[in-house]
């Protein structure tokens, strides 16, 4: 089985027998309220999905990630996992203190051992992470809304928060046991934030042809307006798998984190997380984790050249489309026909058809999946 990133799967959970004590202690501590998405990242750290991170980045590591795309330890790390807090929340709190992290209902779910507080230089942050300072970029806009101070330190998770999709949530230890039980030695991870169309199926099955198992791992969490809702994505995937995939070759489980839309940097981050789940390979398509026209179409593939020590093999796919003459899903490397014979898998086109109540064309989407999509009255994230 592939080693986790950094060689060891991080475990920052409070042991079961010490939970009561931790809850009692947390009730007496100063509190920092964290957003639902940050709370999920605390869980990801605690369960090892973000190994080798044991908490929120301190300044030295953040600077290193921004400048070199590596932690101070030299390990590849491209997306800063940081916690911002207001000066009011931090009043009277200093390095060395332990605080309780609470969710929006004020329920303490984790502890944070504060190592340092330091200023967030927003312009520098967004320039490095997103490659732009344009506030129309969702990641930039989010950063500009953050507090001015960051808090670095190790976390300890007391309890997981309620999750409506708990049934589809597996930890890295669980996926590793699962892959081992299935006898898979090579596993390809597939990241998605979309409903599955025939192009995705083509990529997944092509990749699966060369490895033992396929791990479909949709990102469930905050997305931008117009994206498909999480429950719609999962419903569609479950239906596709039930009808068109071999059960002993495919696993569907979710990753609870937000989309950052950081393109190339996020592609590396996504592959590291899947490596922690036990994947040996990772699919990177056109404009992975992109948004608008902020990144070149294949920048998210080219960035892998910078990291010979990533430890997971990227599988690059070009654009794919349906060809009326080939009568199948193809890509530019294998189809000799004219562009006029091609139908693009355009998300915009699919969304447009669904918004008007039309049935998605069978060349783009499986009829069973189209049926699922039609049953949802409001399938898209609203603003």
């Amino acid at each position, binding site marked *: *089985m592939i*080693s*986790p990133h950094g*060689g*060891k*799967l991080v475990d920052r959970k409070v042991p079961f027998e010490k939970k009561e004590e931790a809850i009692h202690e947390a009730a007496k501590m100063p509190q920092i309220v964290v957003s639902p998405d940050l709370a999920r990242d605390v869980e990801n750290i605690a369960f090892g999905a973000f190994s080798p991170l044991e908490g929120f980045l301190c300044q030295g590591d953040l600077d290193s990630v921004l400048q070199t795309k590596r932690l101070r330890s*030299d390990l590849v790390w491209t997306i800063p996992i940081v916690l911002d807090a207001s000066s009011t929340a931090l009043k009277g709190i200093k390095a060395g203190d332990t605080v309780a992290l609470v969710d929006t209902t004020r329920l303490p779910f984790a502890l944070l051992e504060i190592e340092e507080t330091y200023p967030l230089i927003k312009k520098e942050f967004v320039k490095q992470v997103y490659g732009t300072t344009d506030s129309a970029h969702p990641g930039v806009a989010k950063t500009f809304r953050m507090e001015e101070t960051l808090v670095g330190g190790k976390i300890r998770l007391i309890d997981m928060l309620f999750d409506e999709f708990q*049934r589809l949530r*597996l930890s890295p*230890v*669980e996926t*590793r*046991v*699962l892959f081992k*039980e299935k006898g898979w030695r090579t596993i390809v991870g597939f990241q998605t934030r979309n409903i599955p169309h025939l192009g995705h199926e083509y990529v997944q099955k092509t990749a699966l042809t060369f490895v033992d198992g396929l791990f479909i791992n949709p990102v469930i969490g905050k997305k931008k307006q117009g994206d498909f809702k999480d429950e719609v994505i999962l419903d569609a995937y479950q239906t596709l798998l039930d009808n068109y995939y071999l059960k002993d070759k495919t*696993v569907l489980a979710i990753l609870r984190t937000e989309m950052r839309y950081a393109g190339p940097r996020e592609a590396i981050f996504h592959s590291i997380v899947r490596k922690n789940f036990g994947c040996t390979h990772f699919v990177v398509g056109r404009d992975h984790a992109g948004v608008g026209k902020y990144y070149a179409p294949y920048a998210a593939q080219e960035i892998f*050249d910078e*990291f*010979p*020590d*990533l*430890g997971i093999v990227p599988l690059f796919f070009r654009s794919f489309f349906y060809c009326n003459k080939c009568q199948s899903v193809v890509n530019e490397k294998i189809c000799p026909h004219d562009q006029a014979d091609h139908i693009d898998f355009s998300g915009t086109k699919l969304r447009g058809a669904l918004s008007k109540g039309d049935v998605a064309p069978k060349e783009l989407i499986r009829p069973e999946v189209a049926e699922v999509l039609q049953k949802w009255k409001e399938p898209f994230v609203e603003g």
Partner: protein
Amino acid sequence: MTSIELPESLYKRIETRIKDGKFASVSDYVSFVLREKLVTEEETPESHFTKEEEEKIKDRLKALGYL
């Protein structure tokens, strides 16, 4: 940053090798090659859970329908 010593001939060979522009300097090239080498040597043997933990996990995976 820190310095290491390389035989002059090797340094020159790398200088010639990186003329295609993929690497900005000999240092970049050497760092790349060493990282590539290190990642294979740092692979650790599988042992991220005890037998007891593994059985508990299998029970959960069965209950969820994964096994």
